[in-house]
């Protein structure tokens, strides 16, 4: 089968119109018309998105203060994708990510303390100071990075899925990547391999419209990403990546189908980064008006407004939530500041394994 029955989800369609996109992909994921979330569910989603947002805002301050260095790629604006998709994943599942992975790591459950300490290059960092912002890893959460080569994580994710498939496991491997990855051969090699071998792989493309500074339309002959993914014989859906509930619903549906043994699924989340590509990027390639337009669709604001309209949220609650989140980040920063440096004497550790055989 080349794709699922077309299903049109109103929100994504109207979002596509607002953003001036070309005609949307052949299929779009259904929203959550008949889900009755548990009490506090929306609040939990909002809290997670807020935690990512505030964490990264603090990173900007720390970067300006030279506390953290290197390339720092912010996820601000895209929080709904990480949070929504992680709702569909279980503890035993695996996640492979890119260099814009703070949100993925935090949504996956990697402790903010460990992520912040890694940004500081400290011994308590989740990669013991060897990774930094672009290479967050956490084996206990099956978080496999943190890959700074565009599309480089895709074959790896296929391999994790292959290992599960060969052992008859129902675990899912979820691989995040950007629209830029579509121009790399590794995306296509992975899509072919995964579909050919029916691997339990959930491919999540975060289409934020720009590969660094090059817009999708300027680097792709065909900008309909879901259609291209579907051509490999996997179900491919597009979802409004600014709507956490829509992402959650689509991801749940896709992950359940992957888990049921239906091979790889592709999910395109149409999203936008509010900040530049990295801290070094002067952001000359985008119109201010475009950025402002997308900021009007801020995923945090969208969910908060929905919750307010349903009486689930008021100003006082929002303020308390923010205070809680900020306190956690303060704690993470404080702990990172005080954490020991990884000794220079240990420079050459972890080039080869220290445990002898793992067999």
């Amino acid at each position: 089968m080349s794709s699922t029955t077309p299903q049109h989800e109103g929100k994504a369609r109207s979002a596509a119109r607002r953003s001036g996109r070309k005609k949307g992909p052949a299929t779009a994921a259904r929203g959550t018309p008949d889900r009755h979330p548990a009490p506090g569910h929306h609040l939990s989603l909002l809290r997670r998105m807020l935690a990512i947002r505030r964490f990264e805002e603090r990173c900007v301050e720390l970067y300006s203060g030279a506390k953290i260095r290197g390339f720092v790629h912010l996820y601000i604006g895209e929080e709904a994708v990480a949070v929504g998709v992680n709702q569909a994943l279980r503890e035993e599942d695996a996640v492979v990510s890119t260099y814009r992975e703070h949100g993925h790591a935090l949504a996956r459950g990697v402790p903010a303390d460990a992520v912040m300490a890694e940004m500081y290059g400290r011994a308590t960092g989740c990669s013991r100071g060897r990774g930094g912002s672009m290479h967050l890893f956490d084996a206990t959460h099956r978080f496999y990075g943190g890959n700074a080569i565009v599309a480089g994580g895709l074959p790896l994710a296929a391999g994790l899925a292959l290992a599960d498939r060969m052992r008859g496991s129902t675990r899912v491997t979820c691989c995040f990547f950007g629209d830029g990855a579509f121009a790399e051969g590794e995306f296509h090699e992975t899509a072919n391999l995964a579909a050919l071998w029916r691997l339990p792989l959930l491919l999540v493309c975060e289409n934020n419209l720009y590969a660094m500074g090059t817009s999708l339309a300027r680097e792709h002959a065909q900008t309909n990403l879901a259609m291209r993914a579907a051509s490999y014989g996997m179900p491919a859906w597009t979802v409004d990546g600014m709507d956490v509930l829509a992402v959650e619903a689509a991801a749940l549906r896709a992950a359940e189908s992957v888990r049921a043994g239906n091979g790889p699924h592709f999910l395109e989340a149409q999203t936008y980064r509010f900040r530049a590509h990295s801290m070094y990027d002067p952001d000359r390639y985008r119109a201010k008006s475009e950025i402002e337009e997308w900021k009007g669709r801020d995923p945090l604001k969208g969910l908060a407004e929905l919750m307010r309209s349903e009486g689930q949220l008021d100003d006082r609650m929002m303020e308390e939530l923010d205070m809680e989140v900020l306190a956690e980040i303060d704690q993470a920063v404080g702990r990172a500041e005080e954490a020991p440096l990884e000794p220079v004497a240990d420079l050459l550790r972890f080039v080869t394994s220290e445990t002898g055989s793992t067999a």
Partner: protein
Amino acid sequence: MSKRKAPSGTSRPTTYREALREGLREALLQDERVFLMGEDVGRYGGCFGVSLGLLEEFGPDRIRDTPLSESGFVGAGIGAALGGMRPVVEIMTVNFSLLALDQILNNAATLLHMSGGQLSVPVVIRMTTGAGRQLGAQHSHSLEGWYAHIPGIRVLAPATVDDARHMLAAALADPDPVLIFEHGSLYNAEGALDEAVDAVDLDTAAVRRAGTDVSVITYGGSLPKAMAAAETLAGEGISAEVVDLRALRPLDDATVMASVGRTHRAVIVDEAWRSGSLAAEISSRITEQAFYELDAPVQRVCSAEVPIPYARQLEEAALPQPATIVDAVRRTVS
């Protein structure tokens, strides 16, 4: 892992190809996490016939034909290793492995370090290397030295049937990525498989022939040429010691320096190009560690600095040959 045992005197004739196949078969029988994956490894039987018959015995799940997508399936091997399997990935030639270099260098070799020691990658990647079969530039290069440049991977070059038979098991026992380079001209080579050897260690070079006048240091497909040269030199009264590096990363400096300490002269034979080669690295190490042992400048016999040509006489002229090794030795002992 047990160390190399002394030869027992009992042996059976086999080919390099058959020895590799026996090693693979044993690995597949002993550990159900082991599987072979690569281009034409299944129905075709391996493009050099190494895996012939394994598909029938182990089935398509474990003898897994892949599409022609080196980066994709090598990366999948790395991912499968992360996921708890013990994949053996076959790439047809080192030239094609360049399409997977991103996965090998940026993922396999770096994940352990980048993750602060959390993610080891127990993948084994086998590929053919070298020239001598008139296959032209895109199938004939010797790039194992490039891989030996990279921290985080182990690089092996079996040159004998014993090593071909047993290196795979040792490689699979290594928790880190191991690349095995099989020289294309060796597959049909016959040798006596020592019945007493049931394991090899990956850390030491081997002295294949003892000598007193010069150390000829080599590996892989150049070993038979070095042995032939040593035979010729013996006829001239020159006693050449032949050192087979076996492992190109990490290099066994101790065996090399001990040999140079005995002979005081060194000739390095490396089928790769001279500039920036493994031969350059070894020469430099000898200078650093054994300079005062030397009675003559270190000599190198490498391939001509040219893409390997097709025509037989040109190809032969481009590669190290027994005669050029003999010449280099004569220069250094005169």
